[in-house]
């Protein structure tokens, strides 16, 4: 699976304090929605991913529930976090 440039950028270095908009698949609109829910940093979303036991389906469904991400966006996000 080919990865986007954003994905490469994100996984190249440690997450640290990167904002949630830096995640692959999360654009401006989705990023804003996530921030409204309290997921303002990428590590918080990572936290949610881990809490869901790194389960792909559950995480993608959660992402859809929370910010309305479509299939492609959620897949990108998941792939990014998994790495």
């Amino acid at each position, binding site marked *: 699976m080919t990865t986007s440039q954003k994905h490469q950028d994100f996984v190249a270095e440690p997450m640290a304090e990167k904002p949630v908009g830096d995640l692959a698949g999360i654009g401006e609109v989705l990023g804003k929605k996530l921030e409204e829910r309290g997921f303002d940093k990428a590590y918080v979303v990572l936290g949610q991913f881990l*809490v869901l036991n790194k389960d792909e389906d*559950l995480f993608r469904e959660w992402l859809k529930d929370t910010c309305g991400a479509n299939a492609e966006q959620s897949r990108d996000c998941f792939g990014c976090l998994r790495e």
Partner: protein
Amino acid sequence: MAGLSDLELRRELQALGFQPGPITDTTRDVYRNKLRRLRGEARLRGEERPREAARARGEEAPLRARPAAASPRAEPWLSPAAAGPASATPGAYGDFGGPAAAWSGSRGLARPAPLRRRASARGSSEEDEDGRPFGRPAPGASPGLRRWWAASPASARPPSTLLGPDPRPGLRVARAGPAASARARPEAGRRLERCLSRLLLWASLGLLLVFLGILWVKMGKPSAPQEAEDNMKLLPVDCETKTDEFCQAKQKAALLELLHELYNFLAIQAGNFECGNPEKLKSKCIPVMEAQEYIANVTSSSSTKFEAALTWILSSNKDVGIWLKGEDPSELVTTVDKVVCLESSRPRMGVGCRLSRALLTAVTNVLIFFWCLAFLWGLLILLKYRWRKLEEEEQAMYEMVKKIIDVVQDHYVDWEQDMERYPYVGILHVRDTLIPPQSRRRMKRVWDRAVEFLASNESRIQTESHRVAGEDMLVWRWTKPSSFSDSER
């Protein structure tokens, strides 16, 4: 489906072969949807295969769960609100009944705690008004006096301040109250107890003193009208026949002396009669003859003088302490002939006798008082019990209403996912789902109230009549509102 606690949700998921991660606020919705989907698939598969393949089905279920989970994704996206109501936090349940019954509920709750402390404070201060002998504090008295406490805070008291400022003046509790509300309760309670026990001690000592004082006063009464007559007895002039002023005064003095003797005699006799009757008298009323004999023995005066004395008593309006009684006790006597017996209105009794009589009277009065208090206290207990019961019923009703709303909504969501046949669900079916058979009779009242409440106060659920499985029954239908309609979220 709804109303599952986190643990139950976890167990259900595991029973269907799925291993969930932690269930937190953010993951609860997700897992609930997962459970719903798994259940739907389990049901579908149960209709396809025969029962013997149950085991195989159980093994396949987790395998199928993953790819099947992908299929709902293709469906049109349900609004988040559909998943939202199912995820009401458990904490919200308590809040529902809270505002409605906050004042009365916490009032009922707050009462027992401060009552125990308040009552003893009341008991000590109000014992002063009791007049109990020997001041022994009875545990029965203090709770009984809650009645007065109950009357005073009838106006709205802030329920949060359990040991708040006391309206009654002069209680040490008021001093300890504001300070104690900031501290831990046991410590405040101990201080309170110390203050109250000291108060009780002083109150009982005061009562004892009061009692003794009253006793002494009652004992020392009949010593007043002595001096006037004593003065007159001094001059030894013979005044039988003369009628000048001096002699008249002397005669009057003699008369008074006679009366005095008579009074004493009657008083002593009456006292003896009251105090155990050692001479076996028939009544307090002494027959005229007896009295006359006695007076003749003591003062050596003739019967004319005695009659004159009686006439004087009859004519005077003052109360001399001697009652003249005729044949008919209720009639007033007007002439000397009618007088049959004499009675003293102030019997003279010994100290021991007086003491025992006083004690008896006091004890009987106090007992009556206590019976009244106990009765009122029992009434209060009964009332409080009733109020608490009503509160609980109301809470139970609101819980039931919440569960019903969840069930109906889930049913509707299931219908939208083609797992149910009709968008409405029978009322009785819901009842049988929520209430196990053994509790149905017990919860009948709660159920009926909940149904009433829903019919009148819930706009998202419609009560309709439909034909279900060939029979007409009342059903509830979830009217799909916008996503803002969930107050629990």
